[in-house]
């Protein structure tokens, strides 16, 4: 019997994600239509095209490079969310862990003049420390990790502003430029920048983030450690009964999740692509977009790579819309709609399974009916 494609879990995830994307873009288009019908079609195309809005291939390559530079930290945040979610934890604190990573790596680079590797390690440790706080609160004090995560996000935001004010430019609210203050802290380019029309920001971060995605996939799917973590996520009490240290597992997975987010921060801010604004009034959206990317990727580390690129692609595309009619936040709106729709993925899979089952049942009935028909025909033949 032919295997039904619809019953394959991977195919289902892919289909569901595509439905979310198409519906999300469509609803975004409807919002644009309501705001101003005149330019809606063009605006949504701009969002989808992003760097392709440039005509010259050279500029296209350069801006593709920029999108990739910001995809790397997004991918790390998405992996952070995904890792914790596989252990049954919703690490919304990834945004704060990312923020803390920014604070530490920039302070180490600009204030202490460290080179890039120790800066990045510090950011990783910082993220892990913050994740650890949430983990300890969760496993020993029964505090919901979402609420402690949000509280830590706000605390860290103010801390970051305080810390980075000590290394900011005298006349602007931004931190000192990395390339002039301490070039040794810039991530090595590995010659990758040349591939993207000499984009100086492209470098180590991009292959490293993909490597981390593969590593997460291996750890979660192929090791005993990953198995224990997932078992803890499925049923804490059963895991404890089997002799797994469930408290340690919760803390450890939030620490790893935080480390991934902190590493993502170093991957963006140590390229010198962005400077931190010391009067920032809300945590960077990177951590929250990570939620979108993780769920859109079907909670698969490798699917997340593609989803991260897509989310960053439309976020960057939003910056190109006609500002006299629309605002750049339309991309945020679209990714928020996509996250909301991801809530329905479970239902979509259920519906697909049911329709596949129904079809199979029908086919089985038909076959049975045909067989009976066949038998009665033969019987009839015998009697005659």
């Amino acid at each position, binding site marked *: 019997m032919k295997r039904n494609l619809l019953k394959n879990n991977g195919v289902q995830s892919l289909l569901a994600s595509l439905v979310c994307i198409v519906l999300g873009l469509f609803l975004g288009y409807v*919002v644009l239509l309501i*705001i*101003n019908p005149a330019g809606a079609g063009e605006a949504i195309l701009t969002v989808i095209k992003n760097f392709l809005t440039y005509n010259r291939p050279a500029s296209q390559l350069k801006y593709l490079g920029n999108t990739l530079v910001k995809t790397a930290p997004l991918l790390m945040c998405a992996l952070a969310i995904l890792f914790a979610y596989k252990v049954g934890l*919703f690490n*919304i604190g990834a945004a704060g862990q990312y923020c803390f990573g920014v604070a530490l790596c920039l302070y180490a680079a600009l204030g202490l003049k460290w080179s890039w590797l120790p800066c990045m390690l510090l950011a990783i440790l910082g993220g892990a420390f913050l994740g650890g706080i949430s983990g300890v*609160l969760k496993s020993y*004090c*029964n*505090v*919901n990790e*979402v*609420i*402690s995560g*949000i*509280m*830590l*996000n*706000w*605390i860290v935001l*103010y*801390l970051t*502003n*305080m810390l980075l004010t000590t290394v900011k430019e005298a006349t602007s609210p931004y931190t000192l430029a990395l390339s002039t203050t301490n070039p040794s802290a810039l991530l090595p380019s590995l010659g990758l920048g040349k591939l993207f029309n000499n984009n100086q920001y492209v470098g180590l971060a991009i292959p490293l983030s993909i490597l981390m995605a593969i590593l997460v996939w291996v750890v979660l799917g192929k090791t005993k450690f990953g198995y224990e973590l997932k078992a803890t996520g499925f049923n804490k009490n059963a895991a404890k009964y089997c002799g797994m240290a469930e408290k340690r597992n919760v803390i450890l997975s939030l620490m790893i999740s935080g480390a991934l987010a902190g590493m993502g921060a170093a991957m963006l801010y140590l390229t010198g692509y962005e400077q931190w604004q010391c009067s920032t*009034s*809300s945590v960077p959206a990177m951590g*929250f977009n990570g*939620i979108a990317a993780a*769920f859109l990727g079907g909670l698969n580390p490798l699917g997340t790579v593609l989803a991260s690129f897509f989310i960053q692609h439309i976020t960057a595309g939003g910056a190109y819309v006609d*500002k*006299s*009619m*629309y*605002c750049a*936040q*339309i991309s*945020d*709106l679209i*990714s*928020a*709609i996509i*996250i*909301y729709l*991801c*809530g*329905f993925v*479970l*239902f979509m899979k259920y519906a697909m399974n049911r329709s596949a089952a129904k079809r199979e049942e029908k086919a089985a009935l038909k076959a049975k009916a045909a067989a009976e028909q066949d038998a009665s025909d033969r019987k009839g033949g015998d009697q005659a």
Partner: protein
Amino acid sequence: MSLLLQYTLIFASVLILVALGGCFSEHSGVINLGLEGIMIMGALGGALTMRSMADNPSRLLVILAVILVSALVGMLYSCLLAVACINFKADQTLVGTALNLLGTAGATVIVKAINTAANPDDVSSIIQYVGAKKAFTVTIGSFEFSWFMLVTAILLVASYILLYKTRFGLRLMACGEHPQAADSVGINVYKMRWAGVLISGFLGGLGGIVFITAGVSEWRFEYGVAGFGFLSLAVMIFGQWKPQRIALAALLFGFFRALGNVYTGFAFLKALNVPSSVYNMLPYIISLIVLAFTSKSSRAPKAEGIPYDKGQR
């Protein structure tokens, strides 16, 4: 001193309203992490009403209209949560988070669109409501009384009665404790959960407008509501899901939040020379510490967060 009292009361009002919203939703069995988004949407509705009624001479009319619109917008927005979590059994944490992101992004897009339509050079996300805001306050000496405080007090008492003294409230709580048992005696769990979420939308939307009118007379919607929805959830947990305790918890949290606004008025606090960021962090730090000590003996509704499936009995 009266300024500190005033800010404490108004911030406590916000926390009480929103925490009560969370309380109703959780008692019915749905964790409402989207309160932050509901607050933003309610605030948006209220702020737009206030701006359009700026010259209306009738105070009562302005107050009623603003309260009604914010609450209704909050309820409408909470339908998104209800549909996904009750009828489609979606992950409540994920959908709540999505509502928060959607709230900030959506409100920003809407406000910017309105501002840009009115004046092509105006690309800000600010709504001003100086005129109508006056309708809500009565000055008694140096204390500025806000009608929202009275509304909150009334709603607090009403919530207590609704939850503990009526058939509806007791049935609602049954659905959060043991939905299967509730269903077996003929209570429609889906309907009850819808009711819980809608009430939380009502109170959350109202809390949103109270929050943005608390200290300022214009609001930049890109900021959202600064984590107040989550602070309210912390208040709710600290208050052990009971209205009377929630009120006390809200006063405590409101006090620390107010301190950040008015600490410069106290000579001894100013002399400490602590940076203002520390005062801004204070409510969040306090809530973390408080949660760490109170969550252990949590009396959360037993079935909260688990989608109800009629087939699983």
